[in-house]
């Protein structure tokens, strides 16, 4: 990877102990959750109630929440603030343009989110194998988790750009963003709630809702990206 921003990110995301601990915690929490939600009852118990174990739904929701939590903080560089070059440094001390900086950050976020999701794949597929869901429902669930996590990542990036030097406010806004993103839609607008959608995996309404949700999030990503671009431009202008 020739992009210096991506290269910097790869070095930090793999060799910084604080980040590696995140991977372990992430894997450990998912492993414990999968172990706890693994069906203890017999196959007949579930068939008798006309349902399958909800292991996949629970593990996918757990993946979504944990991944979103880490993504929004990784996006805001909470774990590695001093290790990354700041945006001003990139723009002022290197020939990197605002567009290239934004592109590098987006690419890094995309692949790192994908990487984190890949780490959880064995848990998700183990859950899937006993949940009676089709592979297409699995793909749609992955899409929902990925797009939602990527959105969190970019929201984190945006909040970090806005609230660069105000760490308490940044922490608060990160948490509030997560809560606003996931909790109210469960009851107010379940069609766009990632948690509600993942819980409904296997039901007839799942596919179109998931598709709708994914498009919604992709649109949000684009909008945030545009907003972020303007912030960078503003930062550059102020620096000079």
């Amino acid at each position, binding site marked *: 990877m020739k992009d210096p921003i991506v290269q910097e990110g790869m070095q930090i995301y793999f060799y910084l102990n604080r980040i590696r601990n995140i991977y372990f915690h992430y894997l*450990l929490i998912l492993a414990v959750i999968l172990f706890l939600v693994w069906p203890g009852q017999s196959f007949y118990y579930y068939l008798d*109630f006309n349902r399958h174990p909800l292991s996949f739904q629970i593990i996918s929701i757990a993946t979504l929440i944990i991944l979103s939590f880490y993504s929004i903080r990784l996006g805001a560089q909470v774990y590695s603030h001093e290790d990354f070059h700041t945006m001003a440094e990139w723009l002022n001390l290197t020939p990197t343009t605002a567009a290239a900086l934004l592109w590098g950050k987006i690419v890094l976020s995309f692949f790192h989110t994908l990487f984190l999701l890949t780490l959880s*794949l064995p848990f998700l597929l183990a859950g899937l194998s*006993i949940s009676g869901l*089709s592979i297409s429902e699995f793909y749609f669930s992955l899409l929902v988790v990925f797009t939602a996590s990527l959105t969190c990542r970019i929201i984190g990036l945006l909040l970090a750009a806005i609230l660069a030097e105000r760490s308490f406010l940044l922490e608060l806004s990160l948490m509030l963003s997560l809560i606003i993103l996931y909790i109210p839609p469960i009851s107010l607008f379940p069609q766009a709630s990632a948690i509600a959608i993942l819980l409904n995996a296997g039901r007839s309404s799942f596919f179109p809702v998931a598709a709708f949700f994914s498009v919604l999030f992709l649109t949000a990503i684009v909008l945030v990206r545009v907003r972020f671009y303007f912030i960078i431009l503003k930062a550059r202008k102020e620096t000079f």
Partner: protein
Amino acid sequence: MAGWKVQGGSGSLLLNLILLLLLASSFTLSASDLAVDLMLGFNGFIKLGSRAPVSVSLMNSGKGISGELKLELQQGSLFQQELYTVTYSRKIELPANSRKRYSFVLPFESFTLPLRVSITSMDRKIFEREIDLKQHFSRDQLILVLSRRISLDFLKALSAKPARVIYPHPEYLPESWCGYEGVDLLVLHDISLAHIRPVQVRAIEEWLYCGGRLVITGGVHILSRDNSPIEELLPVELLGIEVLDRPGALELPEKLAFVNSRLISGKVLFGEEDTPLIVRQKRGKGFVFFMAFNSSEAPLSGWPGKIALWQQMISRESTGPYPDHGIEEKRGDGELLLTGLVKNSELNYPPHRVLLGFLLGYLGLQLLLIGGSLLKKRRPALKWLLVMALSFLFSASGYYLFNQLLFREETALISLAVIEPSWQQELAQVKGELAIISSHDRDYQLRIANKDTAVTQWLPGHKLKPAYSFEVRRQSDAVALIVRMGELRARYFRLDSVIDLPIGGEIQKGEGTVTLRVENGSSFTISGAVLVGRGSIFKIGALPPGVTKITTGPFLPDPAADSTAAPALSLKEIYGSNLQERGGLESGMKEALLASLTGRELADIMIIGWIKEPVPAIETEGSFLKRQNISLVYLPINSGEGF
């Protein structure tokens, strides 16, 4: 309905027909160009909790109609407002100015909800009516008499339980064996059945096979040339009318006109020298009685033995030396074998210890790879790829591992059956079960090759919901079962039918040995067949269609003569070790089927084997990732009949 019941003992058949016509006219449900006549049960009489025929006569005086006739029964709890609908449908084609009759057999489990009849043509309902069932139900025993005269009403007094004697018109007799489910006795009382259709005769034959009781009485009319359709039902060959002078067997001091006959098979209960007067023949689980004279006419109308004779034929205890070795049928709310099968420990989810091993393996390797010094600071992209490759490897192996350990499919169709043929006879009763397991919310259409298959649903835990509705669509040579899974994951059905399964042969006793010759005349391969009896076992092996096998084994001791005879082998002993070694779904199904036999009174000599094809054949629309079928063939051999 009181008007349907014909009282009195000296009416004429004409009166009976007039009453029937009046009855039918009372049900004429006229539409503009379409008139609909409905005949419920037998002369409007339905026995509670059993299947009964329903005939729908359509008279079209307008343009041609092409559409669908639907009969809908609502079942479930009215009190809890949790009802589901069972729809019985048929395609109809009514040319202009035509009349057609369509027959159904419906399971009437309740009378609180009406029967809905509708006709749809070109997506438009052209006829709809609800029929109140309350007035048609009774709990009495049902004796059907096909007779020229109303002369057997005295039979209701002979039955141990309250009974009704009904005189249906032969035209309205069911075309399917299950239409007779509520009938306790059928009497063909010296009648010519020239117009009875072959399909109706076949229905009576199949009903007999499932345990029905038929009495055929002799007289002038039974000898009619047009009576050939019922020859199949007779245990004798009819020769003609003769007169017996004071027959000693009946202790009758007068001359008796009777139908002379020659025994084909069965046992002569009363006879005069070589002349059979009363014959009993076993058909599957049922019996046919032939009486060579008309007991309701002189000189037998006042004969004192008449009551005892009829009582013996009505009574279930009259089987004499023919114990019914048929496997007791589980009815009502009894669990299915299939539910027992899915309770099988083989079908549990992978245990936590397997999962723990998998998780520790994955976490350990990732810890080494991410946290270890491998490829430190060099070639970070390779490290990314290795971590991801490990993740993919565990994903694929985990999915494969847990799928292998578990019976789990997105869509699965499992059918099992107990098939009970009779030695040397051609039919077999099939008690089948079917499970559809699916996560998909869509319609499944199963085409069951036998059109007279009776389909009933088994509801787990009495969870009655509208989602349990289903449709049974009668086709020309098959029955289509249409179910929507909705949010249900598993649906269970009972499939009862009668099929052709000719299997026979002979057993010859030799010097300390027995030679068994078995011929499989069916179209199915019977595998793993064994002869079990009196502590001995002969391995017969596979019996492909049309193949005759001869096996020689040790002599089967007669338990009556030899008190030291070994106790009967348990079925688990025969197949148990073999099944345990194999494991898996098929073995589980075989175990469930064998377990269903244990604890029941079985024949002392029997043949057991397996058929792996679905019986009757089931075609599916849409794919099922897994299809598994197994049927247990249980063939009892009564020592008095087989050898």
